[in-house]
């Protein structure tokens, strides 16, 4: 019983890291069909946001609230990665809809730019830049309709960008003068330390579970529930689904497909940011952190069936449980006296490297029989 519980927990823990990382991609790639190779770097921005938030919460004014910084950083990471994603959509991806190869190359370029950006720009100024982006992109949308419709709107827009730039520079210099660790550029990996209430273990049914893993499972669950509710219950969710199924018809019926694209991409990117917070709790935060996850993300989305959230959920937990089952050699402890050749084979694959090989092989075989994944999208798709 304890063994089973332990194994199940480990599988779910590994799977939930995969799931939270792939969730944003399931929307961007699954629903919109955009191959976004910068998805990993949007995760990286989320991880860096956690790091910056942690340092800011160490300042004397915010010190009493230090223990809650991780909750705050989940929201901040969503906003930061979401805004960068929106900018990416507005400037690059919008021009490349329908040409997957070009999108692939362009987003790969963006991923390199973002990696180099965090290496060579001090994080304080990076934070300033993000703040000016937020103000510049969102301030004009809050103007009353009267101003929006006037012919002078472009001047209002322009001046809000100036305001945005100024506040960005201001925050940048304030942060860099108060938090010395953020004032210099560094290519070194940095570290996020979980607050004390999240460290150590908690005992459930006689088995000890690490708290950070539980936290990641909780973050994943909340993200999945929130996104499912949003897609199925809200008006915008319905518009997104409509555009996914038939873009031209939705356009004819008065849905602003442009806005839908921005919102979908923004949410997908924001979820990547949330994933960044989760992975920052497991390892170190560095420019390459996203690259470690991107292949896994695509694997999960493809295996689950493009365009289907339920598929993504099942695929990631499936891969997680398989990784633990094969990698830790669990079958042997469940069935200790199996015939020798079989137990030797299992032992051979019971290392992390070989388990990975085995899982990829199984996925390749599976996709031979079901090339569209676990839950293929039925009905007419956009490309038809």
């Amino acid at each position, binding site marked *: 019983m304890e063994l089973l519980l332990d194994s199940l927990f*480990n599988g779910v823990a590994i799977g939930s890291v995969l799931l939270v990382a792939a969730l944003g991609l399931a929307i961007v790639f699954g629903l919109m069909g955009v191959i976004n190779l910068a998805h990993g770097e949007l995760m990286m921005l989320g991880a860096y946001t956690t790091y910056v938030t942690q340092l800011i919460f160490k300042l004397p004014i915010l010190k009493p609230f230090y223990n809650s910084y991780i909750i705050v950083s989940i929201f901040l990471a969503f906003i930061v990665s979401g805004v960068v994603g929106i900018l990416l959509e507005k400037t690059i991806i919008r021009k490349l809809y329908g040409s997957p190869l070009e999108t692939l190359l362009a987003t790969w370029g963006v991923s390199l730019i973002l990696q180099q950006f965090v290496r060579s720009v001090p994080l304080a100024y990076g934070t300033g830049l993000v703040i000016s982006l937020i103000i510049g992109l969102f301030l004009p949308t809050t103007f009353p309709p009267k101003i929006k419709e006037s012919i002078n709107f472009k001047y209002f827009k322009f001046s809000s960008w100036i305001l945005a730039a100024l506040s960005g*520079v201001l925050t*940048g*210099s304030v942060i860099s003068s108060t938090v010395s660790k953020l004032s210099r550029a560094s290519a070194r*990996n940095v570290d996020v330390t979980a607050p004390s209430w999240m460290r150590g273990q908690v005992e459930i049914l006689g088995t000890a579970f690490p708290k*950070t893993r539980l936290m990641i499972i909780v973050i994943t669950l909340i993200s999945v529930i929130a996104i499912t509710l949003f897609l199925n219950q809200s008006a915008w969710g319905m518009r997104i689904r409509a555009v996914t199924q038939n873009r031209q018809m939705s356009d004819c019926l008065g849905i602003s497909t442009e806005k839908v694209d921005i919102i979908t991409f923004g949410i997908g990117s924001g979820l990547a940011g949330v994933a960044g917070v989760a992975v920052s709790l497991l*390892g*170190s935060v560095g420019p390459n952190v996203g690259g470690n996850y991107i292949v896994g993300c695509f694997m999960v989305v493809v295996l689950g069936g493009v365009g289907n959230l339920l598929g993504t959920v099942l695929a990631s937990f499936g891969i997680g449980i398989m990784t633990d089952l094969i990698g830790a050699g669990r079958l042997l402890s469940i069935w200790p006296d199996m015939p020798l050749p079989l137990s030797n084979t299992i032992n051979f694959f019971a290392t*992390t*490297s070989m388990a990975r090989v085995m899982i990829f092989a199984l996925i390749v075989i599976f996709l031979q029989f079901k090339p569209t994944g676990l839950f293929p999208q039925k009905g007419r798709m956009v490309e038809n």
Partner: protein
Amino acid sequence: MRISRRILAGLATASLAVTATSCGGGGTSGSFDDTVTVGILHSLSGTMAISESTLVDTEKMAIEEINAAGGVTVGGKSYKIEYIVEDGASDWPTFAEKSKKLIDQDGVPVVFGGWTSASRKAMLPVYESKDAFLYYPIQYEAQECSNNIFYTGATPNQQSEPATDFMYKRSPAAGGDFFLVGSDYVFPRTSNTITKAQVKQLGGKVVGEDYLPLGNTEVAPIISKIKKALPEGGIIINTLNGDQNVAFFKQIQDAGITPSSGYYVMNYSIAEEEISTIGPEFLEGHYGAWNYMMSIDTPASKKFAKSFKKRWGADRVVADPQESAYNMVYLWKQAVEDAGTFDDNAVREALVGQKFDAPQGPVEVMPNHHLSQTVRIGEINAEGGFTILEETGVVLPQAWNQKHPSSKGFACDWTDPSKGEKYKL
């Protein structure tokens, strides 16, 4: 305004750094009769840049020190050392290509370079075919002995063997079972083959072994294996690489695998620089084995740390790889002066037997092109340094490991033409 000036200054430094990688630079001025240009070849970009750039800093510092003390004196003439820094870009074929460029185009008499074994293996044929010289400063898995490479880092018998011995006989987990964890590439695998043979000789037991593919940070399966194999605590030998260590230590602590519950980790790739990245709170109470540790309390060690901080900033630390890099520049200088020429073969002959009073204590170049060194075992403390627990006497290097089944009974001696790279003892 302050901001824009800062950004401009940043841009200026960045462009300077770019020029510095492509053309030479020198130390202090003085009156020299001539100059000699040496090559420095490490990764200044890519994943290895963080580690390897510290070696470039140390080598530059050593060259500046030598120049400030009058340069290299050869045949009564004093030479100022200048250097060309090339970027290996964390890409192994680039290391070979840049080596060719330094040897053929720039005509340097010596190249100081490399970090990963993969980069060394890529460069080796270049130096052998052109009969040129590479000085390589990193502790490595050995099982190699080239006539054209000088290895100033530790061989396994100068690091992992004394460390395993300490863990099994004298650590708080003495007599316990071993679990081996490493990144999946040549150094951890070779090192663990040696450790397994040694543990067997000592009468101990290796109950598990696992390797994490490079770049993978999911250590949950490894943790459940450790818990299954060592339910009551034991000895873990860790050869993980770089930031995989962060994931490993964060997660084992959360899973309750800590010194207070009887698990002790011996690390071969965690030095002062890495401790500050991972965070001492995760590492306190675990162990490390090196030839040089910053906490060595001798005038030579303190002077080395002090001059490095003075040259590159008070928050910088020095660690074992940097000390090796520092030593090799001085050893080369001594050999050139003894040989009275920069000519390859004469310097090669003069180098064997060179002694240097290094920050770690006396070192000597042995006939197998490796150094005799002191080995230290340290416990990681809350301040981010090592508390030195044990110090061996001078340990002779074994290019061919005597515990590895494939090289047992072999040795290397380049001073005797009949022996050479690999001969039977």
